[in-house]
């Protein structure tokens, strides 16, 4: 109950900058909230289904690039059209990649998802017309009647709504019978099978849900920044996100979100202090993982209990 109050307060606090109009904070916190969505969607796989996937950046990138394509090539700017199309594309990609990778388990699963991420990275990097390593601009951002998402406060408000909806949706799914099955699979997959659950099907559905939400994050990112580039698709991005989830505390949903906010801040202020800020992040993550295996969320839980 206390947790809910804290989360609601945090969500309201994040809404405040939308009215301030400060361009820096809107972009900075907007990006942080997108990472929250991205990290929470990965937590569904890592923290609940026990699937460590490095393919997550791929779905983010597919959706972001597709938004750029729809806008630049087809002049589609209505988010009521582009959002479902982009999410569907990410979901279909997750269905195909998941269907193939879930044949492997453990470290082999991780390697197969890594291979897919890299394939897509090189595709976006090398395919003609996609702008190479510079990426693409989204010429016209999503627009709906009086709402123009090129306008930062509007984009920010949209991201905020997406974050709240994502969180509520994921908590709902996890409390439903489906969520219980995922936890059972993480705990003891062999037993789940001998109890009659066709576990591959459940894992694939989780993979597709998570992939679609990663696509949502990619869509919002391309909307906020107005450009996409291959670096967002690569394994480095996937790895960083995995670190975010572990730092925040997997299997809690809110933990990875806190991790995402925290890392965004460390990255920003670290950059001002030293160009080697990545080393600071690295040391921090190592310390957290070694000293608090349940991440920041574990610390919060400990304090409550």
């Amino acid at each position: 109950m206390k947790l809910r109050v804290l989360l609601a307060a945090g969500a309201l606090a994040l809404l405040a900058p939308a009215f301030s109009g400060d361009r820096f904070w809107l972009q900075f916190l907007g990006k942080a909230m997108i990472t929250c969505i991205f990290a929470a969607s990965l937590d569904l796989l890592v923290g609940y289904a026990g699937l460590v996937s490095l393919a997550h950046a791929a779905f983010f990138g597919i959706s972001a690039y597709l938004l750029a394509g729809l806008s630049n090539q087809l002049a589609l700017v209505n988010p009521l059209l582009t959002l479902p199309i982009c999410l569907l594309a990410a979901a279909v990609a997750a269905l195909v990649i998941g269907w193939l990778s879930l044949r492997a388990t453990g470290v082999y699963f991780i390697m197969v998802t890594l291979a897919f991420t890299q394939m897509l990275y090189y595709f976006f990097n090398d395919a003609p017309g996609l702008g190479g390593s510079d990426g693409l601009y989204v010429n016209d951002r999503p627009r709906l009647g009086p709402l123009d998402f090129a306008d930062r406060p509007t984009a920010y408000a949209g991201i905020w709504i997406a974050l709240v909806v994502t969180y509520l949706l994921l908590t709902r799914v996890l409390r439903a019978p489906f969520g219980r099955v995922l936890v059972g699979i993480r705990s003891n997959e062999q037993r789940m099978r001998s109890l009659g659950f066709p576990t591959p099907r459940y894992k694939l559905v989780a993979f597709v849900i998570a992939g679609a939400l990663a696509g949502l994050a990619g869509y919002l990112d391309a909307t906020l920044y107005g450009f996409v580039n291959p670096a967002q698709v690569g394994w480095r991005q996937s790895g960083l996100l995995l670190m975010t989830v572990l730092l925040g505390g997997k299997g809690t949903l809110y933990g990875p979100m806190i991790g995402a906010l925290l890392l965004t801040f460390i990255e920003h202020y670290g950059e001002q202090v030293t160009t080697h800020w990545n080393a600071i992040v690295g040391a921090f993550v190592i310390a957290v993982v070694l000293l608090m295996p349940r991440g920041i969320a574990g610390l919060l839980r400990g304090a409550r209990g």
Partner: protein
Amino acid sequence: MAEPVLETRGLTRRFGALAAVDGVSLAFAPGEVHAVIGPNGAGKSTLLAMLAGELRATSGSIRLAGRDVTRFSPDRISRLGVGRSYQTANVFGELTCRDCVWLAAQSRVRSSMSFFWPAERYAEVGVRAARALNACRLADRHTTPARELSYGEQRQLEIGMMLATEPRVLLLDEPLAGLGHDEAKQVIALLQAVRADRTLVLVEHDMEAVFAIADRVTVLASGRVLETGTPGQIRLSPRVREAYLGNEP
């Protein structure tokens, strides 16, 4: 004998040059407790894993209620009414007893692939889970995480999880292994209680228990069926004595 509920024909599993199970043809009648015994390495656990769909047969076939299930996956076999327990207690350590049987019960309703309503809304699952928890005599421990139970209680919980799936056939791999005398008595009493209307296939080392609860006994040696008969026949069989019982201290 009545139409067998579970039947194997020439069932064989090879690991390289070794035939762990070698041409086993057995029929399990509805309602019987059928023990499978034999020295270490006789192929008992391999046989059970094949019946549960966890190991593919190299050759031969398995029929369940007249249907060929030789190549079925473990989850499909389970949904056809076959429950399974393992040589060491195999539960969901981090979940509470109630959640363990809940999951097992949930496997039998069509609502498992549902995303919207909280799991507690599915009352039929709760009813089944509560019934199973009572049956395995762990109702008073329902909030205890499974890993905190004693080993004997974990075995009880495993049987409870199996019962929550309401199976017609139970495949039990050494349900008494690792149990103290009193715990073993508990589990034997539990097995006596659940045997009504069900077929039990029981792999067990504890001879006393086997002869007490089994209707029929099959002796495996080196992957082959040495003999099948009532406990009395098996006890008196010279071949069995030579191959197996004679070696027991």
